[in-house]
């Protein structure tokens, strides 16, 4: 138990712990000493940089750029509205499903980043605390006797629909500002969240198609999945960027010989399209893993009860399959979150793009180390906490325990 290592009650026990774990034999002692030196040097280097040589003004002067890019300050209420709605929904869901609480708690903690990093900014701190209140409000509402008792299942269904509805709602609300102005962490989050949620149904369909007994459909799905997974995301982004407007561009989209008005896509939408294509293929593989984990007996039992294929899928197989792959889905979310940084190649100003813009400003030229470290920290906090949350869920659901 490494945890026990931290709960050292007195000196004697501490010494015994150290002897067992650090100085157990001459080889181990040498290793420990070596590691101490190595860690010391590393800590000194980092500490020296962080507290002595770094100039953090590049960060503090550009807070807005890092978080929302060129999104106008006057329109920032749109973002807050979205955060409040999501926080309220999160609180409600926490009350309704105790099992997913780690994910929500982590999501909330991530939303708090602006406060922790930018305490100085009074207004932002206040608004962030407000979102906590929204969270609490949602929780209190979910805990009301009616909802936690008789109408619990109804409430859950409604909550699921609210979550689904919250996505287009958020987009419409945010879209009051043209997408070209979206940037920073906002853009990174939008690309990740919308990318994975839009891709999800396609991923499920592809997975079902791949498991299907229809050779044509299976071939199509296998082809799509394997081709997308065989090439770098960056080529898919390039493709979405260059070819999408050619294929469905505003002028020449023809359906059955009839010209129709095509879709005029801005860079953000194209990047999103690329991300969706990419994520769908990876999600399909994850869902396929889940499908394979559902024992054959389940389908057979359902067939024996006379259920048709759609019912079997919808009520028996998919719920079990998806439950089994929740941790993998979170993992995919994390990796997509990191991968959205590639939209840099399309000159979008996501979190990484913001960092590069800052280090190009005349006042802060050459301050790359600071800006990179800062956004690395943000990426790290989100990714690390999400992965911890997924481990927690794994435990709660008893997934992976045999």
């Amino acid at each position, binding site marked *: 138990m*490494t945890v026990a*290592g931290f709960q050292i009650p007195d000196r004697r026990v501490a010494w015994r712990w150290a002897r067992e*774990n*650090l100085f*157990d034999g001459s080889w*181990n002692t040498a*290793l*420990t000493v070596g*590691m*101490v030196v*190595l*860690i010391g040097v590393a800590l000194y280097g980092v500490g020296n940089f962080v507290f002595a040589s770094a100039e953090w003004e590049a960060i503090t002067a550009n807070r807005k750029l890092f978080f929302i890019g060129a999104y106008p300050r006057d329109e920032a209420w749109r973002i807050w509205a979205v955060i409040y709605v999501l926080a309220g929904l999160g609180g409600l869901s926490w009350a309704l499903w105790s099992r997913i609480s780690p994910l929500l708690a982590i999501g909330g903690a991530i939303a708090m980043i602006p406060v922790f990093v930018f305490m100085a900014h009074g207004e932002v701190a206040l608004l962030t605390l407000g979102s906590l209140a929204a969270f609490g409000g949602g929780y209190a509402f979910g805990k009301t006797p009616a909802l936690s008792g008789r109408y619990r299942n109804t409430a859950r269904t409604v909550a699921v629909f609210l979550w689904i509805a919250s996505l287009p709602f958020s987009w419409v609300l945010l879209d009051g500002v043209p997408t070209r102005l979206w940037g920073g962490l906002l853009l990174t989050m939008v690309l990740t969240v919308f990318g994975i949620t839009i891709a999800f149904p396609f991923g499920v369909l592809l997975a079902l198609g791949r498991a299907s*007994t*229809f*050779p*044509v*459909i299976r071939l*199509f799905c296998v082809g799509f999945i394997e*081709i997308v*997974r*065989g*090439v*770098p*995301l*960056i*080529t898919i982004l*390039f*493709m979405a960027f*260059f*070819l999408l407007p*050619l*294929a*469905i*561009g505003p*002028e*020449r*989209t*023809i*359906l059955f010989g009839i010209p129709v008005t*095509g879709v005029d896509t801005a860079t953000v939408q194209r990047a999103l399209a690329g991300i969706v294509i990419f994520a769908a293929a990876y999600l399909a593989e994850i869902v396929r893993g889940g499908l394979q984990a559902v024992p054959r007996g389940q389908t057979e039992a359902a067939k024996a009860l006379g259920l048709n294929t759609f019912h079997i899928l919808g009520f028996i197989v998919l719920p079990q399959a998806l439950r089994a792959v929740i941790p993998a889905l979170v993992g995919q979310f*994390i990796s997509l979150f*990191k*991968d959205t*940084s*590639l939209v*840099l*190649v399309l000159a979008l100003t996501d979190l*990484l793009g913001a*960092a590069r813009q800052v280090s190009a400003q005349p006042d802060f030229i050459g301050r*790359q*180390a600071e800006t*990179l470290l800062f*956004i*690395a920290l943000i*990426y*790290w906090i989100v*990714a*690390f906490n999400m*992965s911890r949350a997924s481990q927690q869920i794994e435990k709660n659901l008893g997934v992976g325990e045999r």
Partner: protein
Amino acid sequence: MAAAQGSSASELRRILTLWRNVRVQRFVGQTVFAAIVIYVGYLLISNMSGRLDQIGLSLFPFVDTTGSFPFISVSGDFLNQRAGFDIVETSFGYDYGPNDSYRDAYFTGFLNTIRVSGMGIVFATIIGVFIGVSRQSKNWLVSHAALAYVETFRNVPLLLQLIFWYVAIYLKLPRISNPLDLDIAIVTNKAIALPFVSPESGFGIWMIVLLAGAAAGAAAYVVRSRRQDATGLPSHPGWWALGAFGAIGLIGFLATGLPLETDTPSIANRQVIGGLQMTPEFGALLTGLTLYTAAFIAENVRGSIQAIPKGQTEAAAALGLGSFQRMRYVILPQTLRILIPPTTNQYLNLTKNSSLAFVLAFKDVFGTGSVIITQTGQAVPIIALLMITYLSLSLFISLVMNTINSRLKWENA
């Protein structure tokens, strides 16, 4: 269906029964699906083609459609034009200059991708295994340092790490005006150079001698293995093979009159000359790819070691096998079986991730491709070519790894 006596009612019933037939449904369903897919694909492509045609470009200029067999001729078209841009860093001695064609430029980039991916795979495996084993260390400090490594490197975007390695580490190496000259090596931010050898006369003969040495080594291995089986005495066939090869190689080296010349790097005219050089761009890319992928491989290694039941080690220990023998004969063969599939995935990821070289001034196949797109405007064919290139690479790696995996049969352990 025997009821089909010609009456229209039974005819109708026959058709209805046919329609309810599972096979018919399957056939119709799939045909409809295929038709939709083909039509949508056709739609998108004809749109693209039409739009490109408006501005005087063609969708896929590699191929000419001609009336006669084989209907398609690969003409190359723009790929044969003079590229005009230089790529300084080439791999495997491939010779490229600005007067060569776009095709040569693309191939240069392709070789660069192979070089960085290949080296990345080797180093990431070594470091990943090392970190993964360290995660299992009984030394608290070591196991937690390894944990910190894994959590740091895999939770930060690779692109960011690459920029960091380049800007904050490799560019901060000593400048050419004030180089770090270690007598054997030169370290500057223009290049890190090590002494290297270049062949001289007699090299060919020595190569033949080396070949003979390899054969002798193989023979020694067989002989010593047989002896071990026959007598039971430890006969170290591996060491004997290495010894035989080394001895013959060395004798041959001396006998052919030292056919290698040391090529020591030096600095002239503000450039590092000679030796084995690594540019900071390549260095940053390799470091970033290696350390990032190693974090994932380490997790695979840890997982697969943990997947071996503790009882296996105990049983081996109870039989009196030493810790090396336990590792070699009991744990490792079982670990490898579990480890290879996820590691193959990491190799594929590394290869695909090498395309992120675009942020550094290193010309891999993707970087070269995007330059060609800019210089020629041919986005569609180049993107298609890039996808085919990466697909082929992925396929090749899976093929190699699956072959290795299938060779690792239990009894050979």
